[in-house]
């Protein structure tokens, strides 16, 4: 169940690109084993927020992050071994990225990088991760065919399987259902509900109903700031601090 132990504490977070602010004044905490939803219209700063958490800002020229992001009490920017940090905080991007490897090798990539060589152990990880991502039945007979040749929805599930393969403690999903059909979306949502037993999930989504179905707590981002954070049911029942939250949820804008 949802714990009360904070997994991530974000304090005074401000993000800017080349001096132009994209997000500012974010204060929130994400608790262990919860699904934390983030909703909001385009350009609200949702993706920038995810980027700052596992230090993908290192890749983005001009992106500046201020404030603190405590991961189990330690600021992510104080991590000396950023690769170890990223192993523990996995991401699934909006458009699936099947690496140009076989399906098996896609999923086995991260375990291999961390030194697992035994075939039986790898087989085990690959099967379990693909099963969790609801993809195993469709691909078990062609594990060696190229991951980049799968359909969009399959590639997205492959990406999720790959993200799970290194046992992250936090899994961040950025609009994962953008290229996935509704049936598959539902199956992945079931998977996420199950995964909550084991890890913490941050779910950025454009579908407010998806946040309602999945998220324990939800944050509403608008125009570069975090308008409010609350229990998802409260937000959807109208117990909000800002009327713009209700406006967005009920589809009056955005």
């Amino acid at each position, binding site marked *: 169940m949802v714990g009360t132990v904070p997994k991530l504490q974000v304090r005074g977070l401000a993000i800017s690109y080349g001096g132009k602010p994209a997000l500012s004044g974010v204060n929130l905490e994400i608790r262990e084993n919860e699904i934390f939803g983030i909703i909001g219209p385009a350009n609200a700063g949702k993706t920038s927020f995810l980027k700052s958490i596992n230090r993908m800002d290192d890749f983005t020229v001009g992106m500046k992050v201020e404030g603190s992001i405590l991961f189990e009490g*330690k600021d992510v920017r104080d*991590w*000396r*071994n950023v*690769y*170890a*940090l990223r*192993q*523990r905080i996995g991401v699934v991007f909006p458009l699936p990225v099947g690496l140009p490897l076989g399906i098996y090798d896609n999923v086995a990539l*991260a*375990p291999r*990088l*961390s*030194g*697992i060589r035994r075939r039986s152990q790898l087989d*085990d*990880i690959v099967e*379990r*991760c693909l099963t969790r991502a609801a993809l195993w039945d469709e691909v078990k007979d062609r594990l060696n065919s190229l991951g980049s040749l799968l359909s969009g929805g399959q590639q997205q599930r492959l990406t999720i399987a790959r993200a*799970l*393969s*290194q*046992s992250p*403690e936090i899994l961040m999903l950025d609009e994962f259902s953008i290229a996935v059909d509704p049936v598959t979306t539902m199956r992945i949502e079931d998977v996420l509900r199950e995964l909550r037993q*084991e*890890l913490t999930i941050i779910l950025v989504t454009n579908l407010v109903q998806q946040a309602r179905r999945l998220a324990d707590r939800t944050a509403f981002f608008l125009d570069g700031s975090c308008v409010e954070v609350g229990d998802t049911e409260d937000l959807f029942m109208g117990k909000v601090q800002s009327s713009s939250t209700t406006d967005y949820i009920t589809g009056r804008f955005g």
Partner: protein
Amino acid sequence: MMEGAPNGTSDKDRLTFDWYLDKVVQGLVFLGGISAIVLIVGIFVFITREGLSFAATQLDIIEFFSSPRWRPTSEYRPTYNILAMIAGTASVTGLAMVVAIPFSLGAAIYIAEFATGKTREALKVMVELLAAIPSVVWGFIGLSIMNPLIIELFDVPVGLNILNAGIILGLMAAPIMTSIAEDALKAVPDSYREAAEAMGATRLQVVLKAVLPAAKNGLLGAVLLGVGRGFGETMAVLMATGHSINMPDSIFDSVRALTATIAAELGETAVGSEHYQALFTIGIFLFVITFIINLLADLVVRGVRKG
């Protein structure tokens, strides 16, 4: 906790072997990158040391660029002025671009946008083979095939001239320009083509309206690299221009290129002599020109990244 790689539980932020390996490799790659800078600075220092003191003290810079008289071996009064050679290099390079740009862009567009399957593969291999032909072979073709052909066709006394060298140089530069231009076209995402095709655009319209605008900077970069190639080429132009100091007034005049002058004369000068230093001054000039062309090409291609 669950499947997959074990995480160190006690101190999760420890520096692993992989982390150190990463740093070491980063350092090595950095050295590799820096070595290019060290080399270019080294070359620049070398040629300026050999040529600059002469250029600064004994040379009238304005005359150097504005007089065509290059008479290094004159008993009475040697002169070292390069206008004729600048005209030679510029005219040959200019003609070469007139030849190479339509050929290479046409070939690149055909290979990238129209050819399919085996035709395309065969063409790509051919173009790469063409690019690998040594320049002395091109010079040989200019000397032994183009020369009599031009004499025959145009009824001129000498076939080693701007026309000959321009065509040879154009054919030489075209394969590399084709390769680079094709890369630029291939880098245009297929989704652009699909989006244009979805509106009923013909193949030609797709190329003109969607692909070429998107690849514009890369294509310009290809042309500029061709120009740089033309300026720097030595052996083929030495053999095909006729190598005579001359201010050209028609494409049937023999000329001499800057590079060819250095190649032909440096071996026969005494180290440190005026003539020797004058050749190095030409070297500085070529270096600066090439630097500017490459910088331009780089700035143009960088425009792609900015969008």
